[in-house]
């Protein structure tokens, strides 16, 4: 009730904008504010996350809401300093400051980012925070400093009526979900699972904080020059019945490293998933995006940790993880041409070593690829996969092109071999696409031949007159030179062109 009154009163005060006589709008002097800042700086530096700090932050926040834009001009350095301190406080705090205080800081940081001009969405968000409204903690430990500061706090109490200084240091659930990532880590609730109700974080079971296993890892050596940021979320599904707990962890990698961890056709990441018993999914991002979020899902923290380490290691080494039970795959005899001949549903492990498989792949000198296999189904699948691959090679989709680029980056050694294979073209023939029914017949279908011929050499011959181009000779480009131009081109569409197409035929544009 008191709270409701506060809100109303505050709005009222805001309406009549210039109402300096209102006692709750009492402003501290600039010097007093600077003093508050100093106190915060010192306390944060000394890691004194006490109720006094919380109160000081509260007071300052309330003040800055009014005086921020002024101080921005007159005391920018001091502001910068205290904001650094506030951010550090947020990072280092283990919950002592309390959620209202954190919210206050957040509100302030955002407000400053908006040049001290608030907007409706911003104010409403903080007004409507349930944390601020159902704050159960009584007012304690108000600094003896001044009554004015207290009234200033009252002003700020739109979002959180009373400055919080929790006496038991763990009174508040830290809003940081990282704290919940290890429900197995102990805690009073018997199921070992603790989940946050979406509506409120205030059903607080005073649980001791499990050590955060991610903190040490986030201190990656800077010289690592890898861009990793991580955040852990515990599964919010209230799946208490299900014993197989699913943990989710997010990590951010450089988008340009995506290929390194994905590997060709996702084989690397599949290996990591298999070895660590996790599921790793890649956020869909724009090609231009600088970073990309990976989500690791597993049932134990250890698996997530192992997956994370393996991902980091895989990116760093740019090599597939080494399996304990298996030596490195043998060097591929015909570049990467046979790689995609993976029948669906097979584990990636098997594909690494095709000698172990019952499909035999041969390339003859005249460019024929021959599959041998006892299992007609497997053969059909392999054939299908290879033809799918050749189709893509004949005219790669945008996605494939992107992948190919990534692959080149991640496999520089294969580039030359790969290049020789480049002009593979599709030669439609009966054996090529129409033979699946025959394959099912069984015994007869032990061998199938796929024609993969190189581009007819006439291309090259036609290229020659171009070099000695006569004056009247038209400007020619053969297929290879055009394709090369395409590979090296990464420029987006010219804006005029884009504009015109958007106007005339927006439906043919690829997003």
């Amino acid at each position: 009730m008191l709270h409701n009154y506060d809100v109303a009163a505050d709005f009222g005060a805001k309406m009549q904008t210039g109402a300096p006589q209102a006692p709750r709008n009492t402003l501290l002097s600039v010097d007093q504010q600077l003093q508050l800042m100093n106190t915060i700086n010192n306390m944060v530096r000394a890691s004194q996350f006490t109720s006094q700090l919380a109160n000081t932050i509260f007071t300052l926040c309330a003040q800055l809401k009014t005086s921020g834009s002024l101080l921005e001009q007159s005391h920018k350095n001091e502001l910068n300093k205290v904001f650094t301190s506030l951010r550090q406080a947020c990072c280092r705090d283990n919950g002592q400051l309390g959620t209202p205080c954190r919210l206050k800081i957040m509100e302030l940081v955002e407000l400053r980012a908006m040049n001290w001009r608030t907007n409706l969405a911003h104010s409403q968000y903080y007004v409507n925070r349930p944390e601020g409204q159902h704050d159960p903690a009584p007012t304690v430990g108000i600094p003896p400093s001044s009554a004015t500061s207290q009234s200033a706090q009252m002003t700020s109490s739109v979002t959180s009526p009373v400055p919080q200084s929790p006496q038991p240091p763990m009174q508040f659930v830290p809003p940081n979900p990282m704290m919940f990532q290890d429900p197995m880590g102990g805690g009073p609730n018997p199921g070992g699972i603790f989940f946050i109700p979406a509506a409120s974080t205030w059903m607080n079971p005073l649980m001791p904080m499990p050590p955060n296993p991610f903190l040490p890892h986030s201190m990656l050596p800077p010289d690592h020059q890898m861009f990793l940021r991580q955040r852990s979320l515990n599964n919010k599904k209230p799946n208490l019945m299900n014993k197989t707990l699913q943990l989710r962890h997010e990590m951010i990698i450089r988008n340009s490293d995506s290929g390194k961890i994905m590997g060709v056709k996702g084989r690397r990441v599949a290996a990591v998933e298999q070895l660590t018993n996790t599921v790793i999914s890649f956020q869909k991002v724009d090609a231009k995006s600088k970073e990309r979020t990976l989500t690791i899902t597993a049932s134990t923290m250890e698996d997530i940790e192992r997956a994370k380490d393996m991902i980091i290691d895989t990116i760093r080494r740019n090599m597939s993880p080494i399996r304990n039970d298996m030596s490195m795959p043998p060097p591929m005899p015909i570049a990467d041409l046979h790689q995609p001949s993976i029948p669906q549903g097979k584990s990636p492990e098997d594909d690494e070593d095709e000698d172990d498989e019952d499909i035999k792949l041969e390339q003859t000198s005249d460019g024929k690829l021959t599959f041998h296999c006892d299992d007609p189904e497997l053969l059909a699948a392999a054939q299908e996969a290879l033809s799918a691959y050749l189709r893509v090679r004949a005219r790669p989709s945008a996605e494939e092109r992107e992948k190919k680029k990534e692959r080149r980056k991640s496999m520089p050694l294969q580039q030359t071999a790969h290049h020789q294979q480049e002009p593979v073209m599709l030669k439609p023939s009966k054996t090529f696409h129409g033979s699946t029914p025959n394959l099912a017949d069984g015994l007869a279908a032990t061998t199938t031949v796929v024609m993969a011929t190189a581009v007819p050499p006439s291309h090259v011959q036609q290229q020659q007159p171009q070099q000695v181009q006569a004056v009247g000779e038209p400007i020619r480009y053969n297929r290879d030179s055009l394709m090369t131009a395409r590979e090296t081109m990464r420029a987006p569409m010219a804006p005029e062109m884009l504009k015109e197409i958007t106007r005339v035929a927006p439906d043919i544009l690829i997003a």
Partner: protein
Amino acid sequence: MTTTVAANSAVTAVGADGKTETSIPPELLTRHPLQNRWALWYLKADRNKEWEDCLKMVSLFDTVEEFWSLYNHIQSAGGLNWGSDYYLFKEGIKPMWEDVNNVQGGRWLVVVDKQLQRRTQLLDHYWLELLMAIVGEQFDEFGEYVCGAVVNVRQKGDKVSLWTRDATRDDVNLRIGQILKQKLSIPDTDILRYEVHKDSSARTSSTVKPRICLPAKEPAPAKDKTSSPSTATAGSPTPTTPTP
């Protein structure tokens, strides 16, 4: 604490990227002119509109770079809706029979079997190869006879065709057809047909008798001509000299 680390690494990441951006090889910045300026047209099927109103010129280009930036950013032929067409014609030539450059002409027609499972892939392959061949002036000394290329996306069977200027020049069209067959890697089992536009516009049945076939059918084209009076009118025995 995570935030701090992230911010730091973000800085290094940006720094690294900045480095790569400065080292763009110069060949990426140069432009390669094409012999001709080309116009891409798009026809979106709409039964409620006149055919000509459905036809829109999408873009004009005359460099290799523009060609790719257009091609790479638009829907592939196989991805178009049924009834849609793409046309790539030289600037100034409308993609229709009535255009003065086409009225005497005809087309080499490639039909993509609708029953093929990889129909769209094959269609995309044919279309891209044909585009590269025409913008790259791959038709020997007969580039002047080429007007443009068409792809029709149809449920009953997609079509890719190369339009030429003069239907009466069998020698020219045969050579163009041979190059087309080779560029698109069309197997001998698929027969290419050269159809005269006049025949197509005056057709009464769903098929048009082709003037040339590749590979030639059992009855040679010459013999074919004498045996059918209808084609003889279109491909008159006295070939008019084509306007250059």
